[in-house]
């Protein structure tokens, strides 16, 4: 579904991504691991068209994305949850939903309903300015917004950040549910969570893919886990 080939990205003069190649298969959750500064967020941002690609390509449904402006990429059906949540501080939850809903999308309403079901807190603070939401609530809003807006692929950057265990659990459940409808590329440090829901993984370090495989295999591969994630 999404194919990234030999991606090279520079930010100013820094060479951040160095020939990154991976693929996201339709209907799966692909997890991108790696330590801080490995280049995970940069990868997502490059896919979204925030950074100029100096070499290589990003293909979505066999269509080349790089070079297109962000809003065109997004309107192809790719939803994005940024690392810092990218909340519109001055919009209410309601307005954020309205903004995310696409005019032409017949399922828009249903998607919104479903999101409110998964995150009832959002319903509760329907008329509240997003800037006043708690950290976790903002995260929920960011995910809901991306989901409503997308139709096929979600790029999620560290969704479990700042969520309570109960919430993480709920989130996992909802991501698993969402997975039935969309493909997901997930950046996640929470090994426990990704472990539970991921199908396939790529390990990044220093701007390169250093490891990849089925999540199931990784669970057994204690060595790799320790090496790159420092968990035993």
């Amino acid at each position, binding site marked *: 579904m999404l194919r990234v080939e030999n991606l090279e990205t520079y930010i100013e003069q820094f060479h951040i991504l160095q020939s990154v190649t991976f693929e996201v298969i339709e209907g799966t959750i692909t997890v991108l691991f790696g330590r*801080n500064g490995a280049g995970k*967020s940069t990868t997502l941002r490059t896919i979204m068209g925030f950074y100029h690609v100096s070499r290589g390509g990003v293909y979505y449904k066999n269509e080349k994305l790089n070079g297109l402006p962000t809003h065109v990429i997004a309107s192809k059906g790719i939803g994005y949850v940024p690392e810092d949540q990218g909340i519109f501080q001055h919009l209410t939850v309601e307005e954020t939903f309205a903004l995310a809903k696409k005019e032409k999308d017949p399922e828009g309403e249903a998607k919104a309903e479903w999101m409110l079901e998964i995150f009832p807190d959002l319903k509760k603070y329907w008329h509240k300015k997003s800037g*006043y939401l708690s*950290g976790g609530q903002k995260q929920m809003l960011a995910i809901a917004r991306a989901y409503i807006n997308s139709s096929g692929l979600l790029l999620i950057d560290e969704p479990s*950040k700042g969520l*309570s265990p*109960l919430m993480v659990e709920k989130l996992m459940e909802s991501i698993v549910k969402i997975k039935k409808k969309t493909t997901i590329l997930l950046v996640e440090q929470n090994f426990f969570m990704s472990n539970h829901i991921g199908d396939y993984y790529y390990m990044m370090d220093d701007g390169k893919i250093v490891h990849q495989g089925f999540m199931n295999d990784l669970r057994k591969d204690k060595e790799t886990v320790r090496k790159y994630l420092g968990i035993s």
Partner: protein
Amino acid sequence: MDALLETRNLSISFGEQEVIRDVNFKAPKGKFLSIIGPNGAGKTTLFNLLSGQLSPTKGEIYFKGQNITNLSAAERARMGMGRSFQLTNIFPELTVLENVRLAVQSQRKDFYSILPKPAKYRKQLEEARRLLDMVFLKEKEDYLAINLTHGEKRKLEIAMLLALKPNLLLLDEPTAGISVEEVPVILEVIENIKKDSENTIVLIEHKIEMVLALSDYLVVIFNGELLVEGEPGVIMQDERVQNAYLGGLSHAASGKS
């Protein structure tokens, strides 16, 4: 027990919604407290009240035996209260070193000096470097803070916090967004602070393993109210807490460790 910080009937409302309701809690000297609770329970708001970012609609706050309810954030900071923010909060266009040095300066009591004092300045720099070393950021001291990765920014925040030499540390999710492999580093830093018996630490954190490893005492906030408090072991078994906060995950997590 000698309470360093105490709140009495602390409440705040935003419009209709009462986000914190009659919270009474004590932070004893030298203890490590953790506040847990579901998202939106009011933890950050409670911190904002304690550190003076918000003022309560009702109730009082005592710090070191003094009523500080009406003091400004700056005054509380000077009394020895330091906090970190849930979202990273640094000086983006200053260097890493200068960020920390400023924090050091705020502790040196020469608040309104309009003449440069190079000797003092150099001392502050030394101190700042020492702190950066503690959080493993020394190599990046000349970077502009904005160019750090998320994790590095968090470390910088902690260094700045330490520079304040606070007696009370309020940490709002210091490890959010930090890779698993880096968490121990931050843990180490926090434990370092904890060693100093004078220091009281209040931590907000969702990483339950971490909370359990560090805390002497747990406070659970739910819906703006203090649900229960007590020793970690006791709290973890509390059914209400499990339902409201931990969910099924707790078993998995605790079962593993």
